[in-house]
């Protein structure tokens, strides 16, 4: 069996929203998963489910409240700040907004080179060669490197963001909604670049997105988040053909048709996502769940292996509970 490149155990990020025990916002609540080397792991969920916070706490741009993040046998959640900084050579992030995440006063060359200077890698000459190399990999010309970010379109800027993440030769890239600000024709260009990098360099990705079509196309394995928790994790084919969690089922059925003549059975969820400052008791999905049982209001399900390589967190599948019902 392949050893996971990164293993996340019971990761939590709580925010205090006031004084006292009841004023805690559980943005990420006890999330565990692993990603193998060369794998593309997707995290999908609606706005406010905590997927971005989770991504940022993995590389400690947000300090997690508790939990372990094992990268190649080392718990980086415990590393002192200085060592963590060095560790980020191995794990880089690509942000959602290609307009806000590039310094407007730096030339593209310097933007891409900066991580190398930061990590004290190589000589001026070797850095230059490395920058040209990654620029080529993402489809930027040498001439474009002498320009400023404002001279580029959204898709081009996202290429710059990817080149910057790539330059330090990381083992893992966390991509936080990297294509959601882009038009579809540009989105496909950027997705293809990332897929090439994955295939050529066996680069591992954690890909955070709200778009199920994109996740289905790009990822190997997918985790579905709802209100700070992972509710289902499975291989992409398994997840899309055999979704177990009622939330995953509803998400898939809410997808717009891909062809006007397609007939679609819809489970339309009622109501909105509850506020994470005051999540429902028991299973947090019970307020919207079409299959809700009495026990769901009091008992929280755990993420359990239901079938090989298919984890789900739902009382419908926890046998002891069903017997007692």
């Amino acid at each position, binding site marked *: 069996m392949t050893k996971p490149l990164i293993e996340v155990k019971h990761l939590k990020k709580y925010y205090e929203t006031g004084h006292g025990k009841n004023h805690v916002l559980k943005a990420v609540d006890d999330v565990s998963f692993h990603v193998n080397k060369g794998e593309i792991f997707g995290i999908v969920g*609606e*706005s406010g489910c905590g997927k971005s916070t989770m991504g940022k706490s993995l590389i400690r741009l947000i300090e997690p409240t508790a939990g372990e993040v094992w990268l190649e046998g080392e718990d980086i959640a415990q590393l002192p700040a200085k060592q963590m900084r060095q560790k980020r050579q191995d794990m880089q992030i690509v942000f959602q907004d290609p307009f806000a995440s590039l310094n407007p006063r730096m030339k593209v060359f310097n933007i891409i080179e900066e991580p190398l200077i930061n990590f004290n890698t190589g000589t001026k000459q070797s850095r230059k060669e490395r920058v040209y190399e990654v620029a080529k990999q993402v489809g930027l010309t040498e001439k474009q490197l002498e320009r400023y970010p404002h001279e580029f*379109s959204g*898709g*081009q800027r996202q290429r710059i963001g990817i080149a910057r993440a790539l330059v330090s030769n990381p083992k893992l890239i966390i991509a936080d909604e990297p294509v959601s600000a882009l*038009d*579809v*024709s*540009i*989105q*496909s*260009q950027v*997705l*293809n670049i990332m*897929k090439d990098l994955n295939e050529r360099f066996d680069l591992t990705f954690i890909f955070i997105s*709200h778009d*199920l*079509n*994109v996740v*289905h*196309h*790009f990822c190997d394995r997918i985790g579905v988040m709802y209100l700070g928790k992972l509710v289902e994790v499975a291989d992409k084919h398994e997840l*899309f053909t055999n979704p177990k969690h009622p939330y995953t089922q*509803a*998400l898939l*059925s*809410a*997808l*717009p*048709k*891909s*062809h*006007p*003549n*397609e007939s679609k059975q*819809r489970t*339309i*969820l*009622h109501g*909105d*996502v509850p506020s994470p400052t005051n999540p429902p008791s028991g299973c947090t999905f019970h307020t919207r769940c079409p299959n809700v049982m009495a026990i769901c209001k009091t008992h929280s399900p755990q993420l359990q292996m239901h079938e090989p390589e298919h984890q789900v967190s739902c009382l419908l599948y926890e046998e002891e509970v069903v017997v007692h019902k």
Partner: protein
Amino acid sequence: MATEVLKVSDLKVGFTEDKVDVPIVNGVSFQLQQGETLGIVGESGCGKSMTSFSLMGLLPSGIHWQGGEVLLDGNPLNVTSQKEWRKIRGKKIAMIFQEPMSSLNPVYKIGNQIIEMIRNHETISKKEARVRAIEMLTLVGIPRPDKVVDEYPHQLSGGMRQRVMIAMALSCNPEILIADEPTTALDVTIQAQILELMKSIQAKMDMSIVLITHDLGVIAEVCDRVIVMYAGEVVEEASVADLFDQPKHPYTKGLLNSLPNINNEKERLETIEGVVPAPADMPSGCRFYERCPAAHEKCLVQPEFIVVDNQKVKCWLYHQ
């Protein structure tokens, strides 16, 4: 035969630079039948939103009419008269916007915003208008409408605010609803709710809808007919089934092929190379020329529309 409620011919809207008119929307024409949903699809900057703003007389400052004609129920509109627009806006043509967060006034109660709109167009007492407002909120599926009417926009979620926007838009029983990316800011589960609501209300009120979106999935979901825009121009017009089954224009084909789709697995997505040219920098021939995989010499001259298999397409490929 269905009646034609709206006809737009050769619409030109744009800005002026160095005393030269630069169109953003360049010669857009279409018709809308009673009870029909027409989709306008295109990528950012293609002029689809500007088209919708023109139909409401809501052009941003610096942008003005450069030509074209709008017929509403067969009568030409005086497009430069704000007075005329005020009579039409909300009453005959209503609009819902992409951002339900910023299109409601945060300091007025929801009920008062709907009442204001009704009383602008109809002579009706405040009390009656309030009853109508509650009816409208009920119609769009807002729970506790008699309470929500006295709440402020910030107390509602995004999906609920979009429902309020729809209630407000429908409160004077308009003939035409323009929906500009109504679900783009919403999550998929909420998007499904709102699209379902729009369909059911349209059936109830026999309304015509112009739906502007970048999302071909939304088009497939609700539209009857579609126009595809590229760089300020219409490049194709077709029934929704034809558009998905047999897209004609290379741009439409490119758009459909670059979509990831869960029913159709592909290793690599097709792309459309390059980017949309800037409005001041448009090629004189076909505007898609530089990005088109089928481009050839003829394309340096602007093609005319041609009808092929009931579809209108603006491309030299179909001219013999």
